[in-house]
């Protein structure tokens, strides 16, 4: 059971994930640096008092006691947290500090996530999870130290990749369940409604409802296909392409390029075409 988790693997895959996620986190923190105080500051859209109310502060069973965000006590520190997160993200991209900087990014992401869990954006849960797994092994590639760009295979590299892969599976299952909970995704209306709201990249006029319905079914089907392909070893390579199909739906219907970017970063943990990929085991 789970024997493949303890096999050494090249750190290249996890290094690529780290670099891509570091870039996404850097953009995320730049946006928070610009307008974070406007949302979570003392006079923000959701001030501390309302934030505490929404997490069910002092209500038994809500677990609000475990929400550790320092922004509840020091709401003025938003620029500092976002700035620290930005610097740590850039260090993660450059491969400086490895686990320490990864942990700092996770902490800064969590600080905002804990502050207003109901205002969490779509890309945040997956991004914060990936950074947690990167603390197991952030890879070795460092742009500043080209001599160690190719490192030996490590079990921790494999474990971090496997963690991301399993988490992605559960996340897609969750995403699918959230859609199937609504009749709009069953009767094909969801895609057309999202197009009408103009959130995504796809703009259609009246008469193209059939395309909206087709995209609705495609979104659902791609997630089902991802889940099925990830469960079969010989279909694993196909799961990445199904995930790209899902990313297309995200962009066309939601226009959420940050979420799409995180999904693409997570897709690196999935095997690519095994007939074409060069063996990179222990080499670069």
């Amino acid at each position, binding site marked *: 059971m789970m024997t493949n988790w303890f*096999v050494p693997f090249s750190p290249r895959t996890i290094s690529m994930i780290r670099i891509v996620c570091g870039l996404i986190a850097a953009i995320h923190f730049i946006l928070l640096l610009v307008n974070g105080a406007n949302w979570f500051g003392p006079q923000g*859209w959701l001030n501390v008092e309302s934030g505490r109310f*929404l997490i069910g502060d002092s209500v038994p069973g809500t*677990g609000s006691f475990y929400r550790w965000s320092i922004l509840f006590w020091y709401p003025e520190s938003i620029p500092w947290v976002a700035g620290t997160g930005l610097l740590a993200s850039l260090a993660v991209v450059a491969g400086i500090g490895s686990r320490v900087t990864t942990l700092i990014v996770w902490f800064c992401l969590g600080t905002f996530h*804990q502050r207003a*869990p109901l205002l969490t954006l779509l890309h945040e849960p997956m991004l914060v999870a990936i950074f947690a797994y990167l603390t197991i092994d952030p890879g070795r590639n460092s742009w500043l130290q080209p001599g160690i760009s190719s490192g030996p*295979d490590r079990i921790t590299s494999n474990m971090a990749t496997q*963690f991301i892969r399993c988490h992605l599976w559960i996340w897609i299952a969750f995403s699918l*369940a959230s859609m199937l909970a609504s009749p709009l995704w069953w009767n094909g209306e969801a895609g057309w409604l999202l197009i009408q709201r*103009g959130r995504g990249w796809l703009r259609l006029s009246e008469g193209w409802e059939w395309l909206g319905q087709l995209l609705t079914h495609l979104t659902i089907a791609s997630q089902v296909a991802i889940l099925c392909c990830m469960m079969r070893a010989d279909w694993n390579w196909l799961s990445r392409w199904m995930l790209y199909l899902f990313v297309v739906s995200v962009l066309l219907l939601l226009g959420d390029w940050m979420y799409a970017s995180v999904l693409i970063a997570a897709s690196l943990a999935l095997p690519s075409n095994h007939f074409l990929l060069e063996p990179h085991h222990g080499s670069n």
Partner: protein
Amino acid sequence: MTNPIRNEKLARLTHSSRSTISLSTSTKGHRNVGDDEIPIQWQWVLRLLILFHFFAIALTYSANWRRSAIQDNTLGSLQPYLIAGNWYQEMLPVEWISDSIGQKSVRLSIQTTTSPNDWTPALDASVKNLDQARAQRLLHVLTELAVSEDTQGLTNVLKSIVLHLENDPSKPRLVGIRLESHSDSSPESQAESILYEASLARFSNGEFGFVPKLESHRSVRSLNAKPGTP
């Protein structure tokens, strides 16, 4: 005829290979197998921890849809790990489209002292800017609170919004606020239904409160109503 190179690639890519020996035959020579192996006892400990971790996450995610009492109790005991570890996630921010109001978009409009008869959009998710994604989330939360008739929760969040909008002393003060839905995504479209509407009552101590607008189908009989009419 089997192709050993292709089989090895497949084994690596699918991670289905158990054998560290087959990997150790790599000609790259970067790795000493003995250094990388984890003792079998520790492997079992790690397996249990990994299973626990993903069990907790799967439990959290699935509990957002429907949950049983036993699931709720288990989640309650796992809260320190799930919440403090940033693993706890609710469904509301994950939903692409809200089922509560069907086909309509939602926006928050205000009346100010300078134009007490006009409703001006204050928070509109259809306006594309840096805040759009968060605005959609906040409107989603407000909509769910309004639809579920959680007036306490709704007014609590609205209070924060009013304070934010009145933060700048140069801006006019608010006299009314309403959450409205509309099917057209353009900002100038008319409201089709009102989810919540209230006027602001100012108190002498500087505080304010919300006085909800009575609905047209009020249950209290009008004084001049004809006998037999509700």
